[in-house]
């Protein structure tokens, strides 16, 4: 029996923040394959909202000079996981904009492995997560730059907003670089809504939930900037936020 058939435990690095009971039910998770041919471009939005538990595993292969724009709204159920692994060929470009909205007690996570296999590819990842009471939001993101993938340009921007003291955010960007002339940047921040801004909005007449919703909408909307279906994604995120507040 291969180990593949066994559900991973929290000892596995990529699964350390997962809801193990939910994973056991969901296992095995079939990987979805996406291949973008040389010079082609592809846009995809993944909305994970329905259902108690969900897990998706997506493997993306970007040929030379291929472009992929992936947007994720991870916002439903008690456990939600979207794992993405991407291999970039020469001059390929990968954009990920992801928002997670975790209601009370939920565990949501986005796990990415972005591998630059050849020179001059670009990857941009922007993750915005919101966690309510007792919720956990995680981002595990590995950027691997293989030997010879010189001129790689990789960026990870990870921010989380905690709505309650009992909320938790994990952010673990990771870099593995075996090439030269590589530009990789990451920024992580975990915070709370700005109390001064909340008072300002309240003083103008917005009730607390509306004031928070307005600020959180702006916060997650960054993940959908420039998406093909930006308006729809924003509207879905807004509905998810309203359900959490």
């Amino acid at each position, binding site marked *: 029996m291969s180990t593949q058939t066994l559900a991973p435990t929290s000892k596995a690095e990529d699964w350390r923040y997962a809801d193990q009971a939910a994973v056991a039910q969901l296992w095995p998770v079939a990987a979805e394959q996406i291949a973008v041919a040389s010079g082609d471009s592809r846009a995809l939005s993944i909305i994970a909202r329905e259902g108690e538990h969900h897990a998706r595993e997506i493997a993306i292969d970007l040929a030379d000079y291929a472009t992929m724009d992936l947007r994720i709204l991870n916002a439903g159920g008690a456990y939600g996981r979207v794992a993405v692994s991407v291999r970039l060929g020469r001059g390929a470009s990968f954009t990920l904009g992801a928002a997670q909205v975790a209601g009370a007690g939920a565990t949501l996570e986005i796990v990415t492995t972005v591998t630059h296999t050849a020179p001059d590819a670009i990857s941009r990842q922007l993750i915005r997560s919101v966690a309510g009471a007792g919720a956990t939001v995680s981002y595990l993101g590995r950027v691997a730059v293989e030997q010879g993938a010189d001129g790689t340009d990789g960026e990870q921007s990870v921010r989380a907003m905690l709505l309650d003291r009992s909320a938790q955010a994990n952010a673990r960007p990771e870099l593995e670089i075996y090439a030269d002339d590589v530009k990789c940047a990451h920024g992580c921040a975990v915070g709370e809504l*700005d*109390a*001064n*801004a909340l*008072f*300002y*909005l*309240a*003083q*103008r*007449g*917005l*009730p*607390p939930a*509306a*004031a928070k919703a*307005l*600020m959180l*909408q*702006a*916060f997650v*909307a*960054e993940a959908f900037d420039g998406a093909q279906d930006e308006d729809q994604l924003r509207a879905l995120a807004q509905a998810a936020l309203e359900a959490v507040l």
Partner: protein
Amino acid sequence: MLTIENLHASVADKPILKGLNLTINAGEIHAIMGPNGAGKSTTGYVLGGRPGYDVTEGTATFDGQDLFALEPHERAAAGLFLGFQYPVEIPGVSNLQFLREALNSQRKARGEEPLSGGEFLKLAREKSALLKMDMEMLKRPVNVGFSGGEKKRAEMVQMGILNPKLAILDETDSGLDIDALRICGEGINAIMRAPDKAVLLITHYQRLLDYVKPDFVHVLAGGRIVKSGGPELALELEEGGYEGVAA
């Protein structure tokens, strides 16, 4: 309209207001002056209900209601507007979206019909024009990247749109250039000079009072009103400073 009696308030357990009394009637314009750190902004924040500003004693009655029993957004809906000494920047939230939601929240709380998108835009355009502010500024995020003076002018546009009964304007004149000072002064008169409205101006200088002529001027020092008078008091203070008064 507003009666403050023996108000004591603390910030971070430090007493700042120490027995402040002030009555503002409808139709009146009051100015509060006073040295740095006297508690002027604190007074505005306490009346607005800012978290962390604790009332330890005293009362404030606004239009017959116990002001301190209301949440900040309820005070706004009751007609209280606070112009901030330092307007807050809110990235990603457009002025228009925020103001429309704020206005309609207030209207809802008062049992009024919400304004439609078109009605709201018309109102916003009208008030921007009154303050000679480019409507495009209202499409930008709240105060983000606005210059000091632009922030103050934008606050007056907000006041025009929200149309409060009582405006407490904390150093609205600071940061304004000469023309902007006149425009904002005239804007305050246009929006707030009415028999059923009142204004409390917090300021350090006579210059704003040249445009918005106060009926009463008060000196706040050490957390209390230590002297009150007519418009001439502001001129006397500009001449002689606070030394003789605040002692």
